[in-house]
């Protein structure tokens, strides 16, 4: 029973970061109706940038965070300009193809800058671990979870309590109607992109500091996690992405505890697979 609870708690904490990744995908897909496949790779560039800064200035954690987020945002602007804005009049699938051309580029960019493939990522050393009864809350996991939750809360305040947020949700619901309300749809689209890149960069910081390293495989990994979280909750739904992330996290950690490491990845792919096979939304989604 204790094992189950521990895994559950671990899963929820891990799931919070998956939720962030899912939110990043959802912000772009929901508002712009196009899938950004370069999202994971832009975070990858961010965490490698952070890693370099961490090596050059040990102890300057804020610089690492800033470097990660700024690099992610810069990549995000690149994607938005070249794959979305430039192709705004084309079918959504064309933007998606363009984003995976960017994926190829960013992946190669990262490998160009690396002597060795895995690099260290700094994490705060001064965090305590907590024990609540028999449940252990590791310090890095706790940071990951509290950071992700804080970001999500801020995001929801932004989206549900501000004029800007109203515009974003209006465009996501019906961009035609939003135009009639006086919303500048293309400005909101670019802003949503910026927001998604920021959230992604922050997610990258939280995940990398927890793993204390970054690998080139992160781009694909983040893409699969984010897509799964988004689709689990119903593509385009922000609360859905949060729920989807948590579900994914719980499923993964439960699988890890009961069946071991190699089954964990299998379980998360299988979950995505099940969603695709069984979700009624999947059937009604038009072919791109």
């Amino acid at each position, binding site marked *: 029973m204790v094992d189950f609870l521990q895994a559950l708690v671990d899963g929820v904490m891990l799931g919070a970061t998956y939720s962030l990744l899912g939110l990043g995908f959802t912000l772009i897909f929901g508002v712009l109706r196009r899938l950004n496949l370069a999202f994971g790779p832009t975070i990858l560039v961010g965490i490698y940038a952070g890693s370099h800064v961490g090596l050059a200035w040990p102890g300057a954690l804020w610089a690492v965070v800033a470097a990660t987020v700024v690099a992610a945002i810069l990549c995000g602007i690149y994607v938005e300009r070249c794959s979305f804005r430039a192709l705004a009049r084309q079918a959504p699938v064309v933007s998606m193809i363009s984003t*995976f051309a960017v994926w190829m580029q960013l992946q190669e960019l990262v490998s160009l800058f690396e002597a060795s493939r895995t690099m260290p990522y700094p994490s705060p050393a001064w965090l305590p671990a907590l024990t609540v009864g028999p449940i252990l809350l590791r310090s890095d996991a706790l940071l990951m979870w509290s950071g992700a939750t804080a970001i999500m809360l801020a995001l929801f305040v932004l989206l549900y309590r501000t004029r800007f947020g109203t515009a974003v949700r209006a465009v996501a619901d019906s961009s035609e109607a939003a135009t009639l309300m006086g919303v500048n749809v293309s400005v909101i689209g670019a802003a949503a992109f910026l927001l998604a890149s920021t959230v992604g960069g922050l997610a990258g910081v939280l995940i990398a500091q927890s793993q204390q390293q970054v690998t080139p495989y992160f781009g694909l990994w983040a893409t699969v996690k984010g897509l799964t979280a988004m689709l689990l909750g119903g593509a385009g739904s922000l609360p859905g992405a949060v729920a989807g992330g948590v579900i994914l996290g719980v499923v993964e950690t439960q699988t890890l505890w009961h069946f071991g490491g*190699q089954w964990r990845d299998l379980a998360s*792919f299988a979950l995505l*697979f099940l969603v695709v096979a069984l979700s009624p939304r*999947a059937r009604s989604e038009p072919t791109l």
Partner: protein
Amino acid sequence: MSDYAVSLLVRIGVEAFVALSAYLLLVIGRISFGQQAFFVIGGYAAGIATALYGAPLAVGIMVGAVAAGVAGALLSAVMAPAGGIYFAAGSLAFGELVRVALLSFHYQVPVGADLTGPAGADGFRGIRALFTGGMSVTTYMLAVSGLLAVTSVVIVLLLSSRWGEAMRMVGEDETASASLGVRVRRVAALTMAGAGALAGLGGGLFVHYVTYIEPGHSDVMLGVHSLAYAFIGGLGTPLGPIIGVALDIGLLESFRFLAGYRMIVFGGLVMGLLVVRPRGLLDEVAVHRLSRLVAWGRR
């Protein structure tokens, strides 16, 4: 012909099969990031047939294609109803699922003095049917090219038949197609099986050329590249993906100074091309114009 040129042509041929596989699915309106899974399934199956059970080379490769085709048909039972990004994400998951599953796949059989066969993460080595059979590499390359040519002709014929019409209808609008009597499920299943077989064929050809295969060959980049080839080459004809492959591997590879920057340049080319020609170089309009030119030339 230099060894390098031969190896280049074999690579182009092999990847062209995977690109064609992605292309077939595009015709029925499905974006797949998972064709690399069928590539690898075909490779493993072909390798098992020749290296473990002594099948002749051609038979082994056919076995690979059939195995991958069956996998495609089975997958369609689960995935065919999904559309849009669900299908794309699901196919991505399938590609990774196969890769991870293969990491635990051990199947070793004594052949001669050694144990041969898939050894999980270490892959599957010693697939030497091409080299022990006495065929020269150049002959193999010609066989691959010939097979590719025949396949392209078959696909062109298929797409201009009534069957191809049904495929295009499914790609445009499934509900409307169904109401016009198109057996959407059947079209999807057969197309996925065919696409799987094509990728598996590429896998079988690949595995005998390089003599080994490993789970890492189910690489999402392969799937992503295949789609990119289809798009830059052009959606108007199956020649499009082949041209895309040739452009990337042939052209860019030959610029040695681009080594290390190839993906960046190729990616940039794709992005630029999509702005100018969103449906690729040989899009439907270009193909139409070309065919009229040919018809005019014949007169």
